[in-house]
């Protein structure tokens, strides 16, 4: 079935229009939520089509354009600011397609999960829709300028989500979030300027077609480094991660879900699209640096998790740790030419999106329903809130890389690729022992948290605890379904990614 | 050594001493007197310079009239007990 329909622009337009339309609703109207959720199904359906076009090219055929040996599907182009050579140029590939789907999915689920939101409901849902548009925009933009527009645009709704609907320290957190990522954006901007200057075009397609746009040398290395810092902050990698815990702790649940689920993925996406795809062949030392940062993030994040009491903070740091796999995978892939590592990194983007979303939903649900997210105050809660405990268990297990769930596939392939890559580069793959230690620590902090929060004798004077509402169970169940599905049948998504990576590494 | 020069130096010394005395004298009348001395000495120098007419005028007008005028002035502006 050939689809010759501007899918991508439709996704963006529907979301953006929806953002505006929601404002037309009177404040406090119950229809707002219905409208928002139903509207968000449209982008979800469209991104599903995109995803199908990517992972199952037989079922859905999309218009494509070739760029530097790779293909972008559902390609669209329209003029915007012709004077500066800036245009609306969209397309997805195996890297971005799944992330677009993830964005749409998590938006819908986040909305459903936030059904109980009472404070400025209308604006809240509008912000989520806006967020969906901007983040999806980042993934689909094939014009650097446009990319940056969406990149920065993504900050806005997140900023408001934290600043308006956040917790007690929201001012500090939202400021920190904004400034940190803004600073990172500037480095990205710098990179974009270099690309434009060197290639004379903003179009990623053209840049890829030009091949080695930027002559190799110190300059390229510096550029790589700048972009690494820029995207790494978003990712986030240690030591540029400190905005993340604060932002998460203060953000409302749906905000956290999107923040961890897709916003961080922008960093990983950028790293792969820019640092790897558009800037090949920089010094090995930099790739070593990337790998080392990955390892440090993994281990450091895991250790910090061990000392956390706030569940949300714990999950936030675990995100730091898990996004380290992306960095590590990229570094190792570029060092030793391991396709698996790169594919694993890409897959981890998707996997972590699902898992962290689930984790934050649970942490958020605890906050709403129980009144505390502090692990030390929950003891023995499993009896009273079995559903929460059950979902928490599954999410924890997925996050700690239990085989059969999606996290394992990603981590395993990254490790495997890292082993290959290190063996090819350092001569011994056993260096992988260092990040592998994190497997144990990860298990440690999750189990520790589980034991203290859910197990053990029931607290006598614990206040009233409510279990998950049905509107909270639904999104969690959907996430669990995807977590299990891709854990058991990872090839559905992994093989297309691997094929794509084949043209990259 | 020329006599002209000797005369000149002698007159010059008187001249200088005289004018210093004019400036530094405690009493106005003494000043007036020293002024007269100075002016007269000056006419001597004019003679040494072979300007006899000027010397004459100096002696008549300056050395003669001016100190007298001063004396009048002193008398006219005198307060009770003059310093």
């Amino acid at each position, binding site marked *: 079935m050939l689809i010759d329909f501007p899918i991508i622009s439709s996704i963006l337009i529907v979301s953006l229009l929806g953002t505006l339309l929601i404002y037309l609703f009177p404040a406090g109207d119950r229809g707002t939520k219905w409208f928002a959720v139903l509207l968000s199904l449209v982008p979800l359906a469209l991104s599903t089509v995109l995803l199908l076009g990517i992972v199952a090219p037989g079922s859905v055929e999309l218009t494509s354009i070739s760029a530097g040996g790779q293909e972008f599907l559902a390609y669209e182009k329209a003029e915007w600011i012709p004077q500066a050579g800036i245009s609306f140029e969209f397309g997805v590939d195996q890297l971005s397609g799944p992330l677009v789907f993830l964005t749409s999915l998590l938006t819908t689920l986040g909305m459903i999960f936030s059904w109980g939101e009472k404070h400025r409901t209308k604006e809240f849902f509008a912000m989520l829709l806006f967020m969906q548009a901007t983040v999806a925009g980042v993934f689909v933009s094939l014009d650097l300028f446009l990319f940056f527009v969406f990149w920065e645009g993504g900050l806005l709704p997140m900023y408001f989500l934290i600043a308006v609907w956040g917790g007690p320290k929201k001012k500090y957190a939202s400021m920190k979030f904004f400034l940190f990522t803004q600073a990172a954006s500037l480095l990205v901007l710098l990179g974009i300027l270099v690309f434009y200057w060197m290639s004379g075009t903003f179009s990623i397609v053209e840049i890829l077609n030009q091949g080695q746009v930027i002559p190799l040398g110190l300059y390229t290395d510096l550029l790589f480094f700048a972009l690494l810092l820029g995207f790494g902050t978003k990712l986030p990698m240690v030591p540029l991660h400190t905005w993340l815990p604060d932002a998460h702790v203060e953000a409302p649940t749906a905000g956290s879900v999107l923040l961890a689920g897709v916003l961080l993925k922008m960093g990983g996406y950028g790293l792969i699209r820019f640092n790897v795809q558009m800037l090949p062949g920089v010094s090995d030392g930099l790739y070593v640096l990337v790998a080392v940062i990955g390892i440090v993030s993994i281990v450091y994040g895991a250790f910090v998790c061990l*000392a956390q009491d706030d569940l949300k903070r714990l999950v936030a740091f675990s995100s730091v740790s898990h996004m380290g796999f992306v960095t590590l995978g990229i570094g190792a892939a570029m060092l030793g030419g391991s396709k698996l590592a790169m594919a694993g990194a890409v897959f981890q983007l998707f996997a972590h999106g699902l898992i962290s979303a689930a984790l934050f939903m649970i942490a958020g649900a605890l906050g709403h329903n129980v009144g505390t997210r502090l692990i030390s105050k929950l003891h023995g809660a499993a009896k009273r809130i079995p559903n929460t405990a059950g979902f928490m268990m599954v999410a924890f*297990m997925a996050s700690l890389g239990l*085989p059969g769930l999606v996290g394992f596939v990603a981590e395993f392939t990254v490790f*495997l690729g890292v*082993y290959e890559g290190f*063996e090819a580069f350092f001569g011994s793959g056993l260096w*992988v022992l260092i990040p592998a230690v994190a497997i144990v620590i990860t298990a440690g*902090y999750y189990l520790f948290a589980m034991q203290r929060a859910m*197990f053990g004798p029931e607290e006598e004077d614990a206040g009233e605890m409510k279990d998950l509402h049905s509107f909270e169970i639904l999104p969690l169940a959907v996430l669990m379904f995807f977590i299990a599905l891709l854990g058991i049948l990872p090839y559905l998504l992994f093989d297309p990614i691997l094929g794509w990576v084949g043209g990259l590494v | 050594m020329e006599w002209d020069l000797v005369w000149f130096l002698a007159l010059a010394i008187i001249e200088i001493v005289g004018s210093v005395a004019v400036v530094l004298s405690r009493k106005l009348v003494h000043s007036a007197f020293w002024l007269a001395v100075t002016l007269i000495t000056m006419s001597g120098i004019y003679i040494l310079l072979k300007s006899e007419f000027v010397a004459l005028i100096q002696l008549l007008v300056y050395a003669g009239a001016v100190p007298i005028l001063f004396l009048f002035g002193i008398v006219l502006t005198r307060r009770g007990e003059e310093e």
Partner: protein
Amino acid sequence: MFEYALLIVAAPLVAFLLIIIFGRWTRQGGAAIAIAALGTSFIVSVILFAQVLGLGALGAPVSEEVFKYNWIGPIEFGLLIDNVSALMMVLVSFLCLIIGIYSLGYMAEDKSKTRYYAEFVLFTAGMLGTVSANNFLQFLIFWETMGLCSYLLIGFWYEKSEAASAAKKAFMVTRVGDMLLLIGIMAIFASLGTFNIVEIQARGIPAGALMHVIPLLLFAGAVGKSAQFPLHIWLPDAMEGPTTVSALIHAATMVKAGVFLVARSFPLVAASDIASITVICIGGFTAIFAASMALVAFDIKRVLAYSTISQIGYMILGLGAAALLFEAGHASHGFTASMYHLMNHAFFKALLFLAAGSVIHAVGTNDMRVMGGLHSKMKITSIAMLFGALALSGIPPFSGFWSKDAILHEVFVAGEMYGAIFTFIWVAGVITAFLTAFYAFRLWFMTFAGKTRGDIHPHESPRVMTYPLIALAVFALISGMLAVVIGGFGHLVTFGGTVHEGTMELLTEIFTSPLTYITLFAAVAGIGLAYIVYCKQRVSSEIFVSTSVGRGMQKLLQNRYYLDAAYRGFALHVGMGIARAADWFDRNVIDGVVNGSAKLGLLVARGSDAVDRKGVDGAVDGIAYVVTGSSNRARARQTGQIQAYIAAMVMGMFVVALIMLIYLSGGW
């Protein structure tokens, strides 16, 4: 031709899904579904086993990979059906079925039955998947699934904080082994480009450092899962779970997966002498080490747990010895013996646990000190347990005798070839046999003989529990002999397919060897000592602790050689220490830098503001100020005194004159 084998794994998986979805609405919390699935698995396994045996024509191992599918990229999944896996599947599914049935009684009162059966069948699927995996990745996946179920089932009564922490401990400790196993598997893939077990066995690891490292890493996984020294500490604690779980997972099946892993990677281990010797040493040491701790335990299940560790040590020991000898060109008797012991141990240890469960069910406590004299009240349990104890002690014709003897024999052979160290290990093995017999009968006598010591009102368990006991007791008696009857276990399981013996040769060989009698004597001596001390009480058990050495020893043993404390200390102080330090670092240093730079920015801002107000704006105002100010000051100079003016004029004149002078003189 074995495609239907998939059903063996699939049935419990499907049952798992069905139970978690529908379980809560069925009677007995989904037990029926579980039993049906387990039964299906068992029946299909038996058919499979028969077919494999039939094809194998007495001993020639059959292996076939069935049902392959691409997991990701180059990685294929599938089932590997050969003698070992077929045997294991029968064993596992049988035990699962038996214990599942037993659970109907044992767990009848529990509220969370649905959860129990779901986890139970998921575990079954994991174990069956592990033994039938045709590649190490799949192996790892199911291996971890088992680990998860183990975690969940140990923590089944999570409201007990001991259970919760035991579950965590089990998962964490095995996770350490799993991590190393994971790396080993990766290393295999990196050097051979495949996970496929058959292929890996055929090709072996290329010579080099990895040749030694890989088997050691794989063995580390086994050490974790099979609770070998130094990762044994979780197993005794795991007894906090329901007894059925202890019987099934922590005695009969899951802990054997480590042995199975070593068996699957046997050629890799054999290829490396370092690895072989490590395996032997760990196995031998664990055997005597764990047995020693069993001597002082009073918790009936803990005794059995230590016993399990010890017995698995035997199996590992046997495999190691076999590997060493196999590389030297000998037949893999040890391999056979280990698997043989694995099977026998599965039966009698499951029996012991279920019997213990029956006792606990009856008396409501684990503490042997309050039991005693139960024989009269629970005859079936008592006799079943006696069978188990005899099998454990290695008294012929009970099953344990045959396999334990074979292992020790193999070790002795290795000792003959490789010198004193192995002879020493053999001696340790024999001493272990003595200790085993002693603690086994200490347990039995303390529980069933003599008089009731505590305030307990025991009664025999329901039939749904005693029938499985009877069945297992029968197996404990005959499973060893059956192999002898068919001409040696080597007909069923070998590695390399070179073991062919007849029944009579086998018996002759066993009963003519002096080694057999040495072991036997050790076992009988152990039983005798236990009889004297705990049954007849001719000698008080205080005699062991009458000397200071004895007391020290007892204290050491009761504190489990302080290893638990050491690990705990390590985790608490080192692990949490690093964690706290990292957290502090994050909050103060990294965040401090961020906040500090924000403060610095603000400071710069204030500074520039001040500069702007005072400096730049000051300069502007300053110019105005200078103009007005200087005119003011100039006005002040105008005193109106003529003399001052003149003075100034003269000064000016001087300046002018000076300038003119300079100018006229043509410069300086």
